[in-house]
């Protein structure tokens, strides 16, 4: 069992309520960095001093928040009205167990039973605003003693491994966080490494924006978890990335063209070290790279991601070899970073 992934996946940190994950990460890295601080947004920013005389300012980012829900009202019958925080499709919510607020009150999201539905209702999407979280309360006062409006909730899922895959909630992006923790636990790099565990990626890349401003890096590497669409389909839609085929490199997405010089360096490093990789097919989506590369006068930035199926759902799945290779590749890329790689 990969304990790092387990701890981080099971921890709760919906965008804007990342404290539990922040504290866990602080504990995980404190002995391996020279200094750390928390900024006004809640980003955990750490510095691991370099061994050599490298003059590059290098930032490695991994967002620590996850998608979830926020309680918006408590009904007279004690059930909780909620809205989603970050992108969760309505039909992902039905029939799921959730944990609400800092006390992790257990709740469930049900619906009118299929027996009481007619015709089309049986396969129609139930809208999220008609769903309620049921914590077992019998009336409003009973519920409001346990849960407050504005508290966040997330899926109640336990991390597990089976063969070479891991299944758990919030692997987007605790897989990235775990990879960054691993990098910090290795020997010092030739330059000071600025690690940024950032908040609020799922609601608009907001933590990374200010972290990058503060760190003012020359180069930024973003560690992410990217959706794998390698499922059977009647039509021939090419998947973006595949589980088990290695770290996924971004080239272009809805928010960025990744710095081609940096992407080239990553690919060359992978080839030199016999690490498999795959280029994520260009298209939609986005990572913190989009926010980081435009601060100050611009930052050379690129993304390495662990492929995951079923992100933004109660249980996502990654391949553990992919995860290990993300750590290997990121470390090799960092150790070979030189200013001349980015000269025009």
């Amino acid at each position, binding site marked *: 069992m990969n304990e790092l992934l387990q701890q981080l996946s099971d921890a709760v940190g919906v965008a804007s309520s990342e404290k539990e994950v922040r504290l866990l990460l602080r504990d995980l890295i404190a002995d391996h960095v020279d200094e750390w601080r928390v900024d006004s947004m809640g980003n955990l920013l750490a510095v691991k001093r370099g061994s050599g005389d490298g003059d590059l300012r290098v930032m490695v980012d991994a967002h620590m928040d996850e998608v979830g829900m926020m309680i918006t009202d408590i009904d007279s019958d004690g*059930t909780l009205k909620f809205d989603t925080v970050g992108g969760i499709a309505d039909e992902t919510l039905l029939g799921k167990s959730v944990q609400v607020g800092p006390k992790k009150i257990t709740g469930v999201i049900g619906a009118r039973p299929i027996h009481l539905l007619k015709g089309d209702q049986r396969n129609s999407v*139930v809208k999220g605003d008609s769903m309620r979280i049921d914590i077992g*309360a019998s009336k409003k006062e009973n519920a409001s003693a346990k849960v407050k409006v504005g508290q966040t909730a997330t899926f109640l899922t336990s991390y597990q491994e089976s063969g070479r895959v891991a299944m758990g909630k919030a692997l987007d992006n605790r897989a990235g966080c775990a990879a960054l923790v691993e990098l910090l636990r290795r020997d010092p790099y030739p330059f000071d490494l600025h690690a940024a565990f950032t908040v609020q990626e799922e609601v608009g890349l907001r933590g990374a924006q200010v972290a990058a401003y503060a760190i003012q890096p020359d180069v930024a590497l973003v560690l992410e978890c990217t959706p794998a669409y390698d499922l059977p389909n009647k039509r021939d839609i090419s998947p973006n990335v595949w589980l088990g085929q290695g770290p996924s490199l971004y080239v272009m997405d809805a928010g960025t063209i990744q710095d081609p010089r940096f992407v080239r360096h990553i690919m060359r490093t992978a080839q030199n070290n016999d690490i498999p990789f795959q280029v994520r097919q260009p298209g939609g989506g986005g990572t913190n790279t989009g926010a980081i590369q435009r601060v100050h006068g611009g930052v050379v930035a690129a993304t390495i991601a662990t492929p995951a199926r079923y992100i933004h759902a109660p249980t996502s799945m990654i391949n553990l070899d992919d995860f290990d290779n993300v750590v290997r590749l990121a470390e090799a890329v960092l150790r070979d970073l030189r200013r001349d790689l980015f000269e025009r």
Partner: protein
Amino acid sequence: MKTFDLLQKLTEVAGPSGLEDAVRETIAEEWRPLADELVVDRMGNLLAIKHGTAEEGDGDGAPRLLLAAHMDEIALMVKAICHYPEGEADEQAYGFLQVTNVGGVDVRHLYGQTVTVHGRRTLPGIIGALPKSMLPDLSSSKVYGFDELVVDVGLPLAELRDVVAVGDFISFRQPLRKLLNDRVSGKAVDNRASVAAVTRALEFLQERRHAWDVVAVATIQEETRLLGAFTSAFAQRPDVAVAIDVTFAKGPGVKDNHLFEMDDGPTVGMGPNVHPGVMKKLQEAAEALEMKVHLEPHTRGSGTDAFGLQIARDGIPTGLISIPIRYMHTMVETVAIADIERAGRLLGEFAARLNGSFLEDIAREMMDERE
């Protein structure tokens, strides 16, 4: 054992309709110390027989009461093993399972659930699908159906084919969770809540003298065809039968006035599936316990084992007790522990009150001109 612990043990074990072996063994552990005989019949029904004190009159033995709670649960079954892209798969390609339903599965709840695949070994899996943006044939107002959903166990195709075959069962995987007010939520509360109630009734009868033989049966394949009710009632030839199942509680999405509050007592069924005399005696048992029960009219078939029990052989006077639950046929079926305990006491009291004139009393009900 506390009722929560009992229900946890009973719900967390797998028992798809047609693959009840594991759940049967779990129930047998609970019933063995409470019964004089424990029998598994040729269809797979589990029977716990507790003898009553009635004199053996004409050699037929004491009259017998059958308490029937189905032990099976809705589930999925492997329909095909597939991979992407179609055609020759390279050895690294992942395999996926296409599935179909066993019993009345509510597809709206399936995406994102965790499951156990019962292959040559059991495998944990996730129910997944491509994003809708990649499925242009699927209307955005429609949920994923069995054409889009796959079960993913994270195994390469060749290994998957070694372990899993078409026709293998897939059960839902969900721990029983505690909510507030002694309410709990999990899978297969339909109908393990009733199995727990019958267990409580058998315990109740350890302390109470009862004249009739009591035969508790955990039936198979209720969710598909009521198979266990028909077969066990035929074989056991009871004088009276009571089915115990779950019914609809009010809650989110269910405001219907005619349905039932949770934690407010079980329901006593009435209507075509129920013998009016048995119904009345169940109400009397509740009165004796000063327990609140609600009459539940079933205008057509009750959708329970009572439907099968009633017409076994030349007809069996049949009653029905139901425990209100929320979110029936989902992985978050929610029940109040107290309702299970109430149903158990009610069944025990009903059984203990059965006497020599019972059958005549309820027969008279059919010809009572006073109403």
